[in-house]
């Protein structure tokens, strides 16, 4: 099922992610990428680690283009990875796009994530 499309990696179909939800990709070094799907049918990818105390963002409640971390309810912008409101902190985002219902994520960014941490 997995295909390389140049610098983009096909990680699955958009319907595999619940609307206002997320799914994760394991990167092999313990790090996970969370891929979010919003009610506006936008798709975002972030490292699955809250800037506060590393909560798994993929398990938070998604509303608008933000996710509320399941551990202490920080709100994180899906577009920038930055904490919203009073809180300060930022989690890396990964370029992602959707083509004909398939989710494609940037290979370079994935490699960088897999190498980091």
């Amino acid at each position, binding site marked *: *099922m*997995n295909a390389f499309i140049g610098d983009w*990696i096909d*990680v*699955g179909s*958009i*319907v*595999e*992610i*619940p*609307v*206002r*939800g997320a*799914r*994760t*990709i*394991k*990167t*092999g070094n313990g790090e*996970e*990428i969370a*891929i979010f799907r*919003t*009610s*506006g*049918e*936008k798709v975002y990818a972030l490292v699955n680690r809250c800037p506060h*105390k*590393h*909560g*798994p963002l993929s*398990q*938070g*409640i*998604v*509303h*608008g*283009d933000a996710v*509320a971390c*399941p*551990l202490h*309810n920080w*709100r994180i*912008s*899906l*577009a*920038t990875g*930055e904490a919203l409101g009073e809180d300060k902190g930022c989690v890396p985002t990964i370029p992602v796009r959707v083509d*004909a*219902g398939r989710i494609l994520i940037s290979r370079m960014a*994935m*490699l960088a994530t*897999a190498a980091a941490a």
Partner: protein
Amino acid sequence: MLAPNSRERLVVIGNGMAGCRAVEEILARDPDRYSVTIFGAEPYVNYNRIMLSPVLAGEKSFDDIIINSAAWYADNGIDLVSGDPVIAIDRAERTVTAQSGRTVGYDRLLIATGSDPFIIPVPGKDLPGVISFRDMKDVDAMLAAAEGGGDAVVIGGGLLGLEAAHGLSLRGMNVTVLHLMSTLMERQLDEAAGWLLKTELESRGQTILTGADTAAIVGDGKVEGVLLKDGRTIPASLVVMAVGIKPSVALARAAGLAVGRGIQVDDHMVTSDPAVLAVGECVEHDGNVYGLVAPLWEMCRALADGLVEQPSGYRGSVTSTKLKVSGIDVFSAGDFSGGEGAEDIVLRDASRGVYKRVVVRDDRIVGAVLYGDTADGGWYFDLLKKSEDIGAIRDVLIFGQAFASGGGQADPKAAVAALSDDAEICGCNGVSKRKVVASIEGGACTLDAVRATCKASASCGSCTGIVEQLLALTLDDYDGERVAKTICKCSSFTHDDVRREIVAQDMKSIPEVMQRLSWSTPDGCSSCRPALNYYLLCAQPGVYVDDQQSRFVNERMHANIQKDGTYSVVPRMWGGLTNPRELRAIADVVEKYDAPMVKVTGGQRLDIFGIKKEDLPAVWADLNAAGMVSGHAYGKSLRTVKTCVGSEWCRFGTQDSTGLGVKVEQMSWGSWMPHKFKIAVSGCPRNCAEATIKDFGIVCVDSGYELHVGGNGGIKVRATDFLCKVATERQAMDHCAAFIQLYREEAWYLERTAPWIERVGIEHIRQRIVEDEVGREALTSRFLYSQSFSQDDPWAERAAGKDREQHAHLGEFRPLVLEAAE
């Protein structure tokens, strides 16, 4: 004037909207410059493709939608070769060759081949009866199919699909729309507008299935139905595929032109070959391809400027969309996905079915979605394109141009003051401004008093803001109230208002509540979504479909998330009782899944820690096998029923507290509640089960059962209030069920029984549960009815594969390979 035969030869491939418009633009600038030949694959003159929808719907005929008749070609000396597609371009020789063999030389070539419909590669896609919606031939095929009536399936709930569905349903077919996404027209609409649109189309008799993934088109020799991936088959004698388009680039690619997603052009519509231009949907400009006509007009202008006069250059387009379905007004433009720094201004008018959302960033409009009232679409779009500073009119922007440009009315209060006395304030109850003001002057100085006297703002509440402004205008010392906490920042309604309206208006989904109650955000927030989900669940047992994404992680995962992202698992131990089989199963799970800790909880059961989300279903399966079910240690629901040993063993025990605890737990487990709920049964007043700090406590005495409510051992310790004493176990259980139901129906989400009772007073509870016997019985039976839908062990469902994806990674990435988890 150049003689026709000494003119440059311009050959156009594609007799569609862009090709012909480009020629028109060129002729307008210099009618004598080129001798023009246009090749068209379709056997027609140039017609308006976007009007195919009204033709299908029977609102227009083909003649009505012709843009340029045969006379236009003749008058302008254009040689039209229709019904004969070009099959090759020879750039070295500068010729094109058509299917008929005809070869024509060019000095300039313009490619305007448009797009091809995207056909999803499923089995059966080539069966007779499967068509796309792109040209007149498709419309003819649909009209022929519709003659016989019957069932049609439209795959794709975008602009095109919905227009096709509308047309077919007007032509008497029974139409089902299959849409992969959860929201119709998701590229143009947000969830709220999509819900309104879906509701309207359904009320017109169409069936709309969202989240519907086509597996195959089935039929023997011709279409008979569509098979979905979830196993359902939808019967159909006609299937229209309207899932998208892709630029038609085959010819250009074969000719060796630079092609990305479309034929690549510069700002003057020139391709990688200076003699060849391209325009329309077949091109890619600055990384973008377009699927609407407005950008084509701009491209054609730039093309003609570059070719004939001063090059002006095309800079890309911002687009807006409308749906051409009579009686449904939808408008959308720009980017409404929000994101950093974006602010939503939302206006909802439930009685008129209006939803308006304008997205603003740095005082500039970046997007807009309008449903029901699109009169201001053009105005917003204009402000958006010009990137105009709207800071000064921000507060009134959403009311539209007429309102916002009303000069000194930038103050909403001034705007309300300016309303005539006859202006209707409350649409639900038909209350005029005069009546509201009269009732305020007559002594109704608060919102509630206004509601009680003249009924304004007493129903849907969307006029509450205006009524408050009238209070402020009429009274000197009114400085707002609504001390009652609103449910969250997305709404001006209190929890009580929301609960009451859900029941009164029989609401059935979260988007419906948000629309009817004028939510100020498009899809709520992490505070209101779980609350609404609970209120709907409570009000509509067996009817409302739980929204998983509106639940906190623990309730979605049926386990408690820990600080390291693993989960803890607490199986139910009825009344605190256990046995070797259960203990063995727990011991086995601890070893098998390497759980770092297992602990006796404060709730008389065992908690297994450190389980990974992937392992949860297997752990549950093992526990289920030993007869254990979820303990809901994660839920806003019944947690534990603590018991003491009671009369079975204890020398002081007066009744079988253990047995009663087990029965109570079996009656009440699984129910969703505003907050967690704990019960305890003690066998005598020594109260070893700590029943008097529980939400519902039973203390057994010789003569029966003392019932206590509203205790809390948590952050703020509160001893229970005594409710009443009853004689039998049965009565104790009935009172317990009634109390739980009263709490479920009346408390605010995330309010435990202790603060709830402090708010409403124990007298209210006594009146409803003890004094009003008929009411109590009704509460009990409503509880038992709702329990008939909620006592399915969520672990067993998951262990059997339900929501499998919640526990699986979407995939795994190792530097060289990526493997899907499923």
